[in-house]
């Protein structure tokens, strides 16, 4: 199923929002304003945007350490996100979690995760909850190429397959786990080949082509909703920056980087909108500056929000 014009505009908007969020987070981090680790989603925007466009509000996502894009795409409030990565009391987690630990259960966001591959079983469990309760909600689990080498991937995908759970395993294959390139961490070229090991479909798409991502996601989501169980959807992509902010990324070949930069999903989205006459360059510039203003507002909100109270240290350990 291909996207309507309206949808196309929406996912484009979503991609730009992620892009601008990350660009500014990057700058603010470099300016020394953000504590901790920051793993940017720059370059991978089409995956979060395309996949979540195939979801409903009552569907779920489980994210990774590289989570900002997933959260924004699923409707996360960028003010609360920004405040959280600033470590402020107004943040999503009241400053307790930071970039790798943001959740919004009301929006179906099961959380970013500091443990690579840690979200895959969690997504599987949420999918069991959907099936158990007889809803037709589905769950998306986002993780990287390197994460697909973890035991959690194997055990959870197998469990989801045996139980026909409504979960879509989305592998964001940016060809590297930190400095280790794919051919040094697995023998195969397509992570999607692993689907066959569990008797589920394995699908490869160009992860920088938001339409392709969307279409593959729609198919996977509809299988899941119908009770046919999981799909492993591999999206080939590239991170524009280092593994985290501060990584000079010396392990990647500059010419490969150049090639991939030319396939930037936002560049392609822009071209597509213009070619199809869905937007003019001016309209896109306007949209981008609107979003920039939103982001600026979020940053200002984060930056000017109060720090948590020391007493907060001891709360939220147990639930009543």
């Amino acid at each position, binding site marked *: 199923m291909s996207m309507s014009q309206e949808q196309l505009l929406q996912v484009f908007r979503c991609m730009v929002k992620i892009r601008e969020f990350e660009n500014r987070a990057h700058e603010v981090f470099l300016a020394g304003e953000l504590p901790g680790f920051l793993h940017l989603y720059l370059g991978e925007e089409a995956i979060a945007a395309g996949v979540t466009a195939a979801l409903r509000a009552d569907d*779920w996502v*489980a994210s990774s350490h590289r989570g900002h894009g997933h959260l924004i795409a699923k409707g996360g409030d960028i003010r609360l996100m920004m405040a959280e990565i600033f470590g402020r009391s107004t*943040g*999503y*987690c*009241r*400053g*307790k*979690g930071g970039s790798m*630990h*943001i*959740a*919004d*259960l009301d929006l179906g966001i*099961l*959380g970013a*995760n*500091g*443990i690579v591959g*840690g979200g*895959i*079983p*969690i*997504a*599987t*469990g*949420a*999918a*069991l*909850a*959907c099936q*158990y*309760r007889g809803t037709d909600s589905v*769950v998306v689990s986002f993780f990287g190429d390197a994460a697909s080498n973890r*035991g*959690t991937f194997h*055990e*959870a995908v*197998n*469990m989801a397959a*045996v*139980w026909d759970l409504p979960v879509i395993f989305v592998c964001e294959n940016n060809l590297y786990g930190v400095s280790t390139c794919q051919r040094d961490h697995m023998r195969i070229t397509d992570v999607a080949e692993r689907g066959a090991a569990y008797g589920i479909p394995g699908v490869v798409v160009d992860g920088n082509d938001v339409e392709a991502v969307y279409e593959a996601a729609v198919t996977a989501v509809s299988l899941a909703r119908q009770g046919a169980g999981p799909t492993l959807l591999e999206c080939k992509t590239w991170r524009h920056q280092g593994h985290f902010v501060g990584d000079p990324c010396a392990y990647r070949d500059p010419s490969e980087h150049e090639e991939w930069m030319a396939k930037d999903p936002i560049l392609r989205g822009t071209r597509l909108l213009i070619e199809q006459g869905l937007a003019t360059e001016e309209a896109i510039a306007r949209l981008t500056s609107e979003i920039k203003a939103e982001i600026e507002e979020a940053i200002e909100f984060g930056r000017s929000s109060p720090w948590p109270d020391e007493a907060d240290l001891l*709360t*939220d*350990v*147990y*639930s*009543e």
Partner: protein
Amino acid sequence: MGTDTVSTKTMTYAQAICDGIAVEMRRDPDVYVVGEDVGMFGGGLGVTLGLLDEFGPRRVRDTPLSETAIVGHAVGAAAAGLRPVAEIMFDDFLGIVMDELGNQAAKARYMFGGKVKIPMVLRASCGAGIRAAAQHSQSLEAWCAHVPGLKTVAPSTPADAKGLIIAAIRDNNPVVFLEHKILLGIAGDVPEGEYIVPIGKAAVKREGDDVTLVTWSAMVPQAERAAELLAEQGVSVEVIDLRTIVPLDKEAILESVANTHRLVIVHEAVRTGGFGGEIAAIVADEGFDLLDSPIKRVTAPDTPVPFSPVLEDAYLPSAEKIKAAVLDLM
């Protein structure tokens, strides 16, 4: 707890756990049982026998041999509103799931600023005594106790086992429920129906004035037996069954030591890093002025659990060893 006039029934510790789970499954449709062979086979040691017949395969779920996914999926299911009662057959397999348990289940609430709850129970058999050797005999409550966000429960009687499994299932936090394999077949009177033993309350099993024995799980009967032997020698022993490891009922311990002025801690886990250290540390701080003599620990030695009956018997703390430790103090 429970109501005042409850009718009781004789059942084993294993049956009592199963009964407690069944009570909750009848009451709350979100409760489900999950683990390897928990259905027709009744799980690793037969505790869940019968649940499949009553509740069917949707609510009593055999899994692949995948402990990580058993615990990991439970975190997600609980976050999404269900109440999983998951089994890993032996607590020796905790090492396989400590990430899901310690980094996900226990920390989610805190990391997310209080915006999620993870009401799940992880059941596992623990302890030595059946010649199951080094990888099927450990007592690993101390690992769990060191993880803020977890609760850990280790009952010693059928009634407590039922009351605590119900409390654990109703608790809105991840609870590790340790079932000692030596106790599974022990019978006792168990209140019928909804019977709750609150998490975090110790039980004084026997009152005494000369020395306090603090213990839990399968060491409770050993401590009680030691108390009997010591009574014959004129030593009056108070036996406290913690029942819950975390949250610890520290008041019960300090209150008893305030009376006896002597403390012996008994646990089956290996000594170094065992939970006995925590108890000793609390009393050596908050109860220092109450003490008339050194705090003693009677524990397994710092070795893996050996297979041969001769060695395993020597490994396990016993009433005799407890008695000797107490006499040392007097």
